[in-house]
């Protein structure tokens, strides 16, 4: 019996050591961890919260904003998962004045299912569980072994594949693999021929009535909360390249506009559309729908000025209403 156990332990140790080191390494260098740590360390000071998918995450570097801002925008997250984050963290932020919520085209028609790809990350880092969390979802490696093993191997084989991110989880140095526009030397013709382009177009032009209505219900809840707590709610559509914008369907634009028309008469709610911001300067993008760090810096500074003006105008309006 002892011999069996000793042999088994000796057999498992090398595998276990490799797996544990990989898990620790992946957890240490994890953007979700950075965002959560930033949030925990600055709860008393945070005045603005950014929510949305990767469009907002990659476009706004909180370090360039005058207001203390936490970005909880995550890759492939839909409105329902963003609302989980909002519901959990908004009540913990006593100084919260703004919520910047992504409203890119197509976002109203998407939904994260129970098996959405980042379920394990929300579980591990934010302690947000979906109804069918399994033991696998408590570890990065077991949640998606193939993906994380490949990621680890790509980090080991070429350090340029490791993205660099700041304290707020913003990527200021892209990984070599994801900088698609640079790989194609920012050549529009080559990009148009590449099959990697327009990969998100289906997603943006998708029409799904069920998701649309459930998302609107969720956003109505968000609006009510913000109104009751005097939080300014700014819906935003971050910049996309013209290669993407020229392919968006009229129907998709109309659906979003209908929702915006319904909500914007409210003084606490705004919609800022930056979709066409420098859309022709493709050297500011790393793919058709995401700004690169250089583009994000330019955009965040523009957004910062607008937020400052907005704050001045809001304060003035509030003072007038008090008198």
């Amino acid at each position, binding site marked *: 019996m002892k011999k*069996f156990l000793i042999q*088994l332990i000796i*057999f498992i140790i*090398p595998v276990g050591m490799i797996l544990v080191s990989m898990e620790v390494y992946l957890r240490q260098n994890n953007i979700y961890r950075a965002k959560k740590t930033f949030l925990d360390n600055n709860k008393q000071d945070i005045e603005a919260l950014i929510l949305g998918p990767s469009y907002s995450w990659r476009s706004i570097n909180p370090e360039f904003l005058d207001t203390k801002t936490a970005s909880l925008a995550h890759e492939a997250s839909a409105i329902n998962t963003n609302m989980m984050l909002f519901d959990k963290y908004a009540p913990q932020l006593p100084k919260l004045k703004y919520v910047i919520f992504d409203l890119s085209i197509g976002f109203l028609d998407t939904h994260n299912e129970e098996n959405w790809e980042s379920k394990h990350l929300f579980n591990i880092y934010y302690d947000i569980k979906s109804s069918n969390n399994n*033991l696998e979802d408590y570890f990065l490696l077991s949640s998606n*072994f193939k993906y994380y093993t490949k990621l680890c191997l790509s980090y080991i084989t070429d350090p340029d594949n490791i993205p660099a991110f700041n304290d707020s989880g913003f990527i200021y140095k892209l990984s070599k693999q994801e900088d698609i526009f640079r790989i194609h030397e920012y050549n529009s013709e080559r990009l148009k021929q590449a099959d990697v382009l327009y990969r998100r177009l289906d997603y943006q032009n998708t029409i799904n009535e069920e998701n649309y209505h459930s998302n609107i219900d969720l956003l109505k809840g968000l609006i009510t909360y913000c109104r009751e707590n005097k939080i300014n709610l700014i819906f935003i559509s971050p910049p996309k390249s013209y290669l993407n914008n020229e392919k968006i369907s009229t129907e998709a634009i109309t659906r979003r506009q209908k929702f915006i028309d319904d909500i914007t008469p409210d003084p606490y709610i705004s919609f800022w559309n930056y979709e066409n911001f420098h859309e022709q300067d493709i050297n500011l993008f790393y793919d058709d729908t995401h700004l690169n760090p250089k583009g994000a810096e330019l955009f965040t500074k523009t957004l910062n000025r607008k937020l400052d003006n907005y704050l001045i105008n809001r304060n003035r309006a509030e003072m007038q209403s008090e008198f």
Partner: protein
Amino acid sequence: MLTTSLEFAVFLPCVFLLYWFVLNKNLKLQNALILVASYVFYGWWDWRFLLLIAFSSAVDFTVGILLNKTDQPSSRKWLLATSIFVNLGLLGFFKYFNFFLDSFVDTFTLFGANFSIDRLNIILPVGISFYTLQTLSYTIDVYDRKLKGSKDFLAFFAYVSFFPQLVAGPIERATQLLPQFQKKRTFEYDKAADGLRQILWGLFKKIVVADNLAGYTSSVIANYESHNGSTLFLALCVFAIQFYCDFSGYSDIAIGTGRLFGFSLMKNFDYPFFSRNMAELWQRWHISLITWFRDYLVRRFKGFHKWDMARNIFIIFLITGIWHGADWTYIIWGVLHGLLFMTLIFAKKRKKYKVIVAKGKLLPSLTEAGLMIKTFVLFTITGIFFLIRPLDKCFKYAAKMFDLSFFSLPELPFNRAIAAVVLLFVIEWFQREKEHGLDISNLSIPKTFKWGIYYALIFTIFYYGGDQQDFLYFQF
């Protein structure tokens, strides 16, 4: 709980350590641990159905004790009938109620009476077909006086619910498994080590082969109208392999797990695709089910004439078909296999092949290879009725499969799936005289090389495994 899940990977070592390190000096406590572990394992899926197993076990435990106390033939018959009625009644309700209801309505509709009855929304409890036969084997064995009715509540309840084989077999006989619960078990290094190897092999078959093939078969079958005949045929072949790896993979994990706890479970698959006729295939496929029907059902019918044998075989396969599911397709599948087997009885080829093909040789002869391919194709084609429902879709599928497009090139599964199948067949061919594909205990190679094989298999399971699928036999 799936035996391929991380939950099971945590559950199994915990039970194992408690079993051998904490409770090893007390048989009753070991049995109690197995019982609790088995109920946790089953309850993980749906705790409400634990009541069903507990009820079934309680009825048969009581019947066993009462059978001990009476010698009156009529009383004994009544007791046996009670056990059969309760167990088959539960199985019949959960598995066949809607089928009989539909068939009843269809029959009346055929004669012009138009009426409808609402179907019940019944959930089929996982493993009910398996543990029903296992617990029935006990009362029949006690009735036949092959076994004394057990007075050990823990041993009996643990026997019915033994977690490694609870939901998909092998279906054990009371005479074989129950005595193992009643005597002290000692840890044997070689047995446990080989148990681990068998678990690893089962995981490889299930996760690398079956799960990688699942996507191909389900997509072809769901859209069979848009595929050519050769692809439909290939999908059936692929399904046969997927099904084998799924089910025999589960059996390997079950047998291997049993060995870790000092139990010997019966072999359920014995390299069935290396069979030279259907009779040989059925000696090697789902052995525990076929022999159960043979031992507990048809042996009661008298007669040794070949017509008697043919009748018995036909009954076995008819019941096997019905056991698999509440649908006419399963019944037709059973009847077809019964007829194929009967032809071998009349041709006096039923027991022609008793030992594994090309025993002691590297390769089979051309004739043997041809016979194996013929058997595999027969098994595959009859699989239409096993795989596809409802019945009219089976015929449409067959018609589409055998149209002129049968002679065009098929669409293939992923390269990874093909590589997994090739690897499986090569390993199983060279290991066909062994207990399982990874039985390399007697192989005279350095230990480091053996460990290299295990590491490679573990890596393959993690890295090349398909998307997790439920075991196919859970639906039965």
